[in-house]
């Protein structure tokens, strides 16, 4: 029997994030021949609602209010509780993003449901919806099911394959009434620190630096390579502790856990804490002076050499391919 799944869409800089399309794909798997309902919350979201349908939603609900322009747990929670009450879904899926991580446990607590966080795979086996998720920051994995009829989950960006966009798909788009009570937290300001908008957790390619980068300025060649590749820049704890870069860039057991298609580790020795955060990347390249560095044990391709020599050469090579455009 088909199930009803709600997927909360996420918008950044006016566009839907990829993780939303991946969440819809997860929703389709769970729903079987049931229904996937996309939800969009914000100030002006009607115009992009159609895209959710093109990626597999059957229907989209939109909630618009100037107070919903920036995410707040209280505002979004109120809207989502209304939606869940109206639709009575079997499952609600969020991206495992800053928003999803903040909102989903609060909603799950309010509705007394289980929540499976950070799923990297979802399948239906013997009538059970089975979620796979990393534990110990990717040193191990577990498969989890819900013992309750209703289940919430967040899915990690970059792991579940989104469906191809199909512009021939159609479905209804309905706006829902919003009446917000007081929001207990007020956002006074958002300071943009991420320069190029390529978020680490969602990046397809990451160029990361370690202690071998030696200084703040040492990240410059990495940034140039990242720019050519349309990649995000990350770092090991060593580089952050040495103040070469901001902790926001840290990848590892503390810090972010990432799974890009391509991870280029520059001057990173490969401590177990760092490997926990990136070893599930699809392809790993290591550039390090020390041939004995542990990073080479998990790298698909290794170059023993000076990153300050090799990285600019790589940048030149990639420039010639002109891939970013």
């Amino acid at each position, binding site marked *: 029997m088909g199930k009803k799944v709600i997927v909360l869409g996420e918008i950044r800089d006016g566009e839907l994030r990829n993780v939303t399309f991946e969440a819809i794909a997860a929703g389709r798997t769970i729903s079987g021949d049931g229904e996937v309902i996309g939800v969009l919350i914000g100030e002006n979201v009607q115009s992009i609602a159609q895209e959710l349908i093109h990626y597999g939603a059957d229907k989209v609900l939109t909630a618009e209010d100037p107070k919903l322009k920036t995410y707040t747990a209280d505002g979004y929670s109120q809207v989502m509780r209304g939606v869940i009450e109206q639709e009575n879904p079997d499952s609600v899926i969020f991206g495992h993003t800053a928003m999803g991580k903040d909102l989903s446990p609060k909603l799950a607590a309010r509705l007394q449901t289980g929540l499976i966080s950070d799923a990297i795979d979802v399948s239906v086996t013997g009538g059970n919806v089975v979620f796979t998720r990393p534990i110990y920051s990717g040193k191990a994995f577990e498969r989890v099911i819900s013992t309750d009829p209703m289940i919430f989950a967040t899915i990690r960006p970059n792991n579940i394959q989104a469906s191809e966009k199909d512009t021939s798909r159609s479905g209804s788009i309905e706006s829902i009434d919003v009446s917000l009570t007081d929001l207990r937290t007020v956002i006074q300001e*958002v300071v943009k620190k991420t320069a190029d908008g390529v978020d680490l957790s969602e990046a397809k390619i990451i160029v990361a630096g370690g202690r071998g980068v030696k200084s703040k300025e040492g990240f410059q060649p990495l940034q140039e390579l990242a720019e050519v590749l349309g990649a995000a820049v990350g770092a090991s704890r060593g580089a952050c502790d040495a103040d070469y870069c901001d902790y926001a860039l840290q990848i590892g057991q503390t810090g972010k856990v990432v799974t890009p298609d391509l991870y280029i580790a520059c001057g990173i020795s490969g401590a177990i804490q760092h490997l926990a955060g990136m070893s599930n990347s699809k392809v790993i390249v290591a550039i390090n002076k020390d041939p004995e560095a542990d990073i080479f044990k998990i790298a698909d391709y290794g170059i023993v050499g000076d990153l300050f020599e090799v990285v600019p050469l790589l940048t030149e090579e990639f420039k010639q391919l002109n891939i970013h455009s």
Partner: protein
Amino acid sequence: MNLFVLMKRTFDTEEKIVIETGKIQDDGAEWIINPYDEYAIEEAIQLKEKHGGTITAVTVGGEEAEKELRTALAMGCDQAVLINIEDDLDEPDQYSISQVLYHYMKDQEFDLILGGNVAIDGGSGQVAPRLAELLDIPCITTITKLEINGTDAEAERDVEGDVEKIKTTLPLLVTAQQGLNEPRYPSLPGIMKAKKKPLEELELDDLDLDEEDAEPKLKTIERFLPPKKEAGKLLQGEPAEQAKELVSLLRSEAKVI
């Protein structure tokens, strides 16, 4: 101020994971306070230094968690509470733990509850925000800065690298992100004092919580290790040749470019 810190003991980050008969083996493992909870403890101590008050460190777990609670006391917490669920809950999930904490916290007087934003073992980041919701208080996750003024609170929150500046009021729950502070090491006098600080042990019965009301909603059916990676290809030749070859391999063999 009445400050409460939620903490959990976790494997040391150096530990390798071993799975036997579907369970994570912890024989001989080194344990630490979850690193994100250490930021929460440090922040509580700094707030106490500024505003005065009492810090209570709370954990849910088994008897052996006393060791990490003593470390928190040695850092500067005033008292500790160990809610021992060993005999009552077999495989608790985040729902279970938040129920347990709620039944403890609802009878306490508190201004601020601090926790780590995620534990590095389970990695769900659910328990603290769930607790805030059950207590019906505002909650700011992944904070990198916190200032308290009377009953007003201002926090900076890490949102995927950007910073949100948020205003709210106490009582409040916050979860710590890396960058919030630099946790101190326990001093020798601190360690000596910690031995005498009060550490209360409670069970579900003491909290008037029935096991059924904390039964998990989730069930883990399998645990496994990631497949071992084969050693890769070391590229030879002059740097320029290596760079060329790498780009070509990434295109034609790995097909990621």
